[in-house]
């Protein structure tokens, strides 16, 4: 370092301090920016956006692939035990890619009050997510339940014929959350 006067040094110190503080503020903002950035990254790399699972897919009518059978398994999860029953009417079915199918899930509100529930889907393996199209699903909107109400809720889906040949089994899983405040925030 070259010798500098006290004034210059103080000015330099102040400038560098402000730059570094700016860097810290930028890093704080970056932490929040990571959330949309991940969605972008998933979109770009073809992993698919998990939020798309909550939206209806538009399906162009395709000829079903009658020569191919894919097994679709249905799973129901509850984050807390005891306040609901929630299950699919069938555990699995064999489907032809390209054909529209419908199955039902049944939920029974045991919370002892009127409430709102939201089902959150996931599809496994991750590679299959982009090829599993739901045209109608009880997960697209929050479901209002009266106290002790039991309801059958349909989901309609098509497996895209472009599904990679290596996949012959897809699992559709729903987690059923009872959460009135968050459901409101989502919409």
């Amino acid at each position: 370092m070259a010798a500098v006067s006290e004034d210059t040094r103080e000015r330099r110190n102040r400038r560098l301090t402000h730059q570094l503080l700016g860097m810290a503020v930028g890093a704080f903002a970056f932490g929040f920016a990571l959330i949309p950035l991940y969605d972008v990254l998933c979109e770009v790399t073809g992993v698919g956006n998990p939020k798309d699972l909550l939206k209806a897919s538009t399906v162009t009518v395709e000829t079903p692939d009658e020569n191919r059978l894919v097994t679709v398994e249905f799973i129901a999860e509850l984050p807390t035990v005891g306040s609901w029953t929630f299950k699919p009417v069938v555990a699995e079915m064999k489907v032809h890619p390209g054909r529209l199918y419908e199955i039902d899930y049944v939920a029974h509100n045991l919370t002892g009050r009127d409430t709102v529930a939201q089902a959150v889907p996931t599809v496994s393996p991750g590679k299959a997510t982009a090829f599993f199209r739901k045209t109608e699903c009880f997960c697209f909107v929050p479901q209002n339940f009266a106290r002790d109400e039991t309801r059958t809720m349909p989901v309609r889906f098509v497996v895209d014929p472009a599904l990679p040949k290596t996949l012959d089994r897809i699992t559709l899983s729903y987690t059923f959350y009872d959460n009135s405040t968050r459901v409101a925030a989502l919409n």
Partner: protein
Amino acid sequence: MANSTTAHAHDDHDHKPHGIKRWLYATNHKDIGTMYLVFACAMFFMGGAMALVIRAELFQPGLQFVDPGFFNSMTTMHALLMIFGAVMPAWTGLANWMVPMQVGAPDMALPRLNNFSFWLLPFAFTLLLLTLFVPGGAPAGGWTLYPPLSLQAGDSFPLTIFAIHLMGISSILGAINVVVTILNMRAPGMGLLNMPLFCWTWLITAYLLIAVMPVLAGAVTMLLTDHFFGTSFFTASGGGDPVMFQHIFWFFGHPEVYILILPAFGVVSEIIPTFARKPLFGYESMVYATASIAFLSFIVWAHHMFTVGMPLAGQLFFMLSTMLIAVPTGVKVFNWCATMWKGSISFETPMLFALAFLFLFTLGGFSGLMLAIVPADFQYHDSYFVVAHFHYVLVPGAVFAIMAGVYYWLPKWSGRMYNEKVGKLHFWLSTIGVNVLFFPQHFLGLAGMPRRIPDYSTQFADWNMVSSIGAFIFGFSQLLFVYVVWNAVRSGEKAPARPWEGAHGLEWELPTPAPYHSWDTPPPRNVITQGAMH
């Protein structure tokens, strides 16, 4: 030398406030450095006591002493205290003491900010420790605070989050101070590549801190709003993703582990040349290796979360980039060995700790490489093997380097020598204790024992007992460390200005004990070039 002694002769009459005001209003880098070190030591013992609760419970299978919820609080609080309360403040304390002395500056660049960054810490840790007494108990979901579990904590939740905010602000401000001091306050004639490696590693650490501590602050703020204000950053029922938290957390978390270890590289790079009586081998490659490690630390985070699932390409990327870190680290280990090659080595306590660091940190690095291998990691993940790995790099890694640094510089700080015999006893008990404590945990992990459990299956009983015995040896031998330091400061023999004949660097050109203000007049150029013989 004689010149600088007279130049500083009047310093004892310096206007320093006495009593409690000296510490409350402290702006002197040495006073603040001392407070950081004492604070870190207190947290080290508190976190250590929690570790002993853990090891006492795990001494035998079954539930003996504490209930499982409290056990989980102990693992969580132990980690938070040791990382944010002991190791990080200890490094900031060493930086406060040494950086101005090593770059030829009178003090830190921003003395009042320095005071503020220290005094945030007692408040932060008061908040954190208060959680032990609130309904629901202290946080028990692990220091990683993964949702949804961390959101289910009781009243401890907001206290923990605000404590982390305060710690974060403290370390960011401390880091800014170090950067400004190093970049703007170096003595005329001291180029960046004349600086001792401790300053270099701290400069890089400080940039890491400024880049990632705010990301942690952001992540915990999102947890806070998810919990209290109905946002859904990580709440699946509202469209959020709990795995997202893990990505953000480890984007902070991996650079964080280098924040804990890079200054250790600096300290060891000072001590090994001193006691090998040879200049450091490959000074510039050390600087570039440190910078490479810092850069790589930003692109490896997902190796902490292989088991949550990610595309094959992602697994490959994070596996290979993680393994790449072994290259610059290998350069450093090679350089330290080459420094000792054909040196005339003597084994005083600082050197012993530095050598143990070299062996045991490398061992911890190797188990890290094993964990980087994706298919193997599926087996090791969340097992005691991971516990063994990160304790090897943090205890005989970071903590040993801190102790080496304290032994090395204590004569300069206090003007008195520590008792070499007790120092060596402390070293041997610590080194034997730490290996008895952590080495069996490798076996436990490979045999399948999960981490963070208060009880275990009986086939793990033997090694757990050995590990707990090691823990008590290691834990109680740290009391010797306090004794050695206390004894040296109170009644040690007077130390010469250069107590280690092989020591180079500007700090040794100052009289002993180091004057209240370090370099009121910048050191002359010939002293700088002499001191810069790395």
